[in-house]
């Protein structure tokens, strides 16, 4: 990154909403950040196009009252985030302003707050030794951030190799203190502090390699883990019409998923949903550590009424924070709700710039932008041999519930798991409304992951998942026939087949996100339950008439649901299972 010695200045030449035209007196770079001086208020903006001496900038705040000839100062760098201890448990806006540090009830224009604490002391322990040769992302020491070891690293911007000259001894320091001195290849000494900056639009590449994902990321949601598993370091997306439970599902994932750190980017969605996280997460226990959920969570809140241009920045900010923690060897889960709002922000700007529109007036490069963003997730081996990952799950809000719209289509090409929320399931209160058959996970077909399943869950796991899906498909086919021909117009066997699918639907696919126990199922438990429902599938039952079939299966489903609601292997659990066994005995045939 080159330094521009003399900072470029400019003056406002034109204004259309948050697109401002600036006459500049020197060099500017694409995506450079500048500040427009509106009678003392500094409005932050980003260069999105340059034409001759005129820079087109998108302003991250309201331009009300802005006048021609107001002065503009360019900063010489792109939109950057500050990386260092103190990010966990924070509530940031899309530009990494700490929302809790802002005064007053209303967001004020031009108010920028410090993302970290200048004075806070952190307990530091060195990792690197004098003489060690490190690259960007190399660990020099660590501090305890909440309960997590937070690595202090050679800044990502550093190129080449650096030799450690001295390391600060263990003790309590602030983020601005020097933690190590390194020398570059030319022998120049550089002091390293706990913090560094990184431009959000660029991917952090400080790792050795990015293999294909090969491990399962447990989410505790059965229809995901069992039927459509997502890999650690994988990507997935959840499209669904409004009211189908996208946000409830994302919240469930953020509460239960087996990750070290969760970043939630609320991008252009409802403020009250973010308030729900603010309110609940500091109270809820993280089942894995016994700490509060908020301790492992960072929230990027750029709700729908906050400045549109910052929406785009918010997802990049979230991704960059994720990459920072991944470089510490942590398992990061990044959730963005919803990427459609980000695409809409791109559309608004493209429209103001009078670019030729693509489908539904979205910019032509939308698919490229989306796939580029998804590609930043992944499982990585770091230069020091450790590993870290970012698993990314985005929601998409398809206009009119139509999955053929550009954002859904573009995302489908980029993400490897597809969790389709169905309006019909939501209407019949079958939650989570993920349609197990429409949905898919490309990872389930990865030989690496299949090996992982065979080794860690069950030697026949991939076959069992395939069978469960087949049963669901057959059940659905039969149910259509029953609807057409009537209950008594089909053989009793059809009802039997239909209900065997319903057992999987009710017991595996459906899950109560609001129930203390049922909301998260361990892998052990999921395995046990899948085996139980497959046993039922393989069992032959005898029925005299179709009316008996539904009633009988409903009883079985009921006792299995009671099992799901009970603590695993508790007395209640075993009681319900006994009840299930005796129901099975009633009509079992050889």
């Amino acid at each position: 990154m080159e330094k521009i010695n003399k900072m470029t200045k400019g003056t406002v030449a034109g204004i259309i909403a948050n697109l401002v035209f600036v006459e500049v007196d020197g060099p500017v770079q694409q995506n450079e950040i500048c500040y427009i001086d509106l009678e003392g208020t500094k409005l932050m903006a980003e260069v999105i196009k340059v034409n001759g001496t005129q820079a087109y900038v998108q302003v991250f705040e309201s331009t009300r009252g802005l006048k021609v000839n107001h002065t503009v100062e360019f900063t010489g760098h792109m939109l950057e985030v500050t990386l260092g201890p103190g990010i966990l448990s924070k509530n940031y806006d899309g530009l990494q302003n700490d929302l809790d540090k802002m005064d007053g009830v209303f967001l004020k224009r031009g108010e920028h707050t410090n993302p970290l604490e200048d004075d806070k002391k952190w307990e530091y322990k060195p990792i690197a030794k004098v003489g060690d040769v490190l690259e960007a992302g190399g660990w020099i020491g660590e501090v305890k951030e909440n309960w997590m070891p937070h690595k202090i690293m050679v800044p990502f911007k550093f190129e080449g190799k650096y030799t450690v000259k001295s390391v600060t001894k263990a003790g309590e320091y602030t983020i601005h203190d020097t933690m190590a001195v390194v020398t570059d290849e030319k022998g120049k000494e550089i002091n390293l502090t706990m913090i560094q900056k990184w431009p959000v639009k660029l991917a952090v590449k400080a790792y050795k390699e990015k293999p294909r994902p090969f491990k399962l990321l447990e989410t505790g949601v059965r229809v995901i883990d069992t039927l459509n598993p997502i890999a650690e370091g994988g990507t997935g997306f959840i499209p669904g019409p409004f009211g189908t439970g996208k946000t409830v599902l994302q919240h469930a994932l953020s509460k239960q998923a087996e990750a070290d750190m969760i970043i939630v980017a609320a991008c252009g969605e409802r403020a009250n949903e973010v308030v729900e996280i603010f309110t609940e997460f500091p109270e809820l226990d993280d089942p894995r550590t016994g700490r509060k959920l908020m301790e492992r969570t960072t929230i990027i809140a750029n709700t729908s009424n906050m400045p549109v241009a910052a929406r785009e920045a918010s997802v990049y900010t979230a991704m960059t924070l994720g990459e920072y923690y991944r470089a510490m060897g942590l398992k990061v889960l990044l959730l963005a709700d919803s990427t459609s709002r980000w695409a809409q922000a791109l559309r608004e700007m493209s429209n103001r710039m009078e670019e030729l529109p693509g489908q539904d007036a979205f910019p032509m490069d939308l698919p490229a932008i989306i796939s580029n963003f998804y590609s930043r997730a992944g499982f990585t081996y770091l230069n020091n041999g450790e590993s870290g990952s970012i698993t990314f799950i985005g929601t998409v809000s398809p206009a009119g519930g139509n999955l053929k719209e550009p954002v859904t289509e573009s995302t489908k090409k980029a993400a490897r798991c597809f969790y389709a929320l169905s309006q019909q399931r939501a209407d019949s209160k079958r939650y989570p409304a993920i349609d197990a058959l429409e949905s898919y996970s490309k990872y389930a077909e990865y030989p690496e992951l299949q090996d992982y399943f065979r080794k860690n869950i069950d030697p026949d796991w991939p076959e069992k998942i395939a069978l469960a899906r087949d049963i669901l498909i057959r059940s659905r086919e039969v149910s259509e026939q029953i609807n057409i021909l009537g209950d008594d117009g089909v053989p009793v066997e059809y009802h039997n087949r239909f209900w065997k699918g319903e057992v999987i639907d009710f017991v595996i696919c459906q899950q109560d996100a609001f129930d203390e126990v049922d909301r998260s199922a361990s892998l052990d438990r999921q395995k046990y339950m899948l085996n139980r429902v497959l046993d039922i599938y393989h069992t032959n039952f005898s029925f005299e008439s179709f009316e008996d079939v539904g009633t009988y299966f409903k009883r079985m489903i009921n006792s299995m649901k009671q099992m799901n609601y009970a603590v695993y292997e508790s007395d209640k659990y075993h009681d319900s299972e006994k009840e299930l066994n005796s129901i099975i005995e009633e009509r079992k045939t050889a």
Partner: protein
Amino acid sequence: METKAFQKIYTKITQITKATCSLKATGIGYEEMAIVHGRLAQVVKIMGEDVTLQIFSGTEGIPTNAEVVFLGRPPVLKVGEELSGRFFDAYGDPIDGRPAIEGEERQIGGPSVNPVRRKQPSEFIPTGIAGIDLNNALVTGQKIPFFADPDQPYNEIMAMVALRADADKIILGGMGLTNDDYLYYKNVFENAGALDRIISFVNTTENPPVERILVPDMALTAAEYFAVDKKQKVLVLLTDMTLYADALSIVSNRMDQIPSKDSMPGSLYSDLAKIYEKAVQFPDGGSITIIAVTTLSGGDITHAIPDNTGYITEGQLFLRKDTDIGKVVVDPFRSLSRLKQLVIGSKTRPDHPQVMNAAIRLYADAANAKTKQENGFDLTDYDERTLNFAKDYSNKLLAIDVNVEVDQMLETTWNLFGEHFSQVEVGIKQEFVDKHWPTENSSEV
């Protein structure tokens, strides 16, 4: 709006379109207000010295030598206690024949609330309508629209909700109201003796459509004054948001913007969100709750306006004419209040969530039975009973003319359960059944 004596008067308009006119001027702020030929206008584009103004009431008859005066400020509303009981137009000028109010000038369309300064909504707003209170309870700080066809009585229901709801102030933002509906609201509010807590900003079909764009911001600026400064519970009624969105599309069309889905501007989501997200619960007790109307065309909720609205609002309420009982009901299947979980069972009786779900499930069984019946299949005894239950349930609870307390709604539902079903069929937690299942002599509803 008076002009000040020393203001510069421009008289040379360089370009006129159906909605805008342009002229050369300097030192003009973005979104500044101006008066063009006696009409209010707002700066929508500045390119060097060329300033483009959007004329709210249209450009018909504006000459190139019209007088243009810039007011040096964005649109404002004068706020104060005196707003109560008054009727204003889209510009905040009185239309009730009484003098303009004195008060502090506030810019409309102001900044958003910092999300960390919000409180999670938790206060139940009873309306007396069971389709709402029982099945889709509303909460302070919520935003929710009625999705209604134009022939449904949504204005009557809004007026009813407004009068029954427990709010300190009710602010009506009327966009494209017919004069008849405007007079209806006025009469209802007057007759109820509730005028002193009602403030109205009204744009009728007789006014130019583009003016409507100002109405929600005016109403919400007034709402913020009472909710923030006075810590009051404010209920804002916006009718009809479809006409508001139509006005947005007119403007964007005339400004040569590329339309997106259904010829709506690409910014529709953000434009609507800016309004609806003004709904808020403050920690100190003040709140803004928004109930809106979005009219549908032919019940199509995939159209860009209801679709974007649905993604923004916390649920939606559907009205439906129930032909079995000949009354309008709040449709229990398609309606949804996303915030109801925050109050039902905690601010209301603990059996509320289970009773609600059981009744809706049985009502759904009735719908299935009805399909069966229509397709000529035989009905079972259970089917027959669900059909009878559904009819009673519609009549005694869902119909919008029912006005009772929540406890009474729950009692009525329990009685209907007892009348038509066995305890197993209802399937509610035993402890509630033991407590509330009607005994022989109380089964008469």
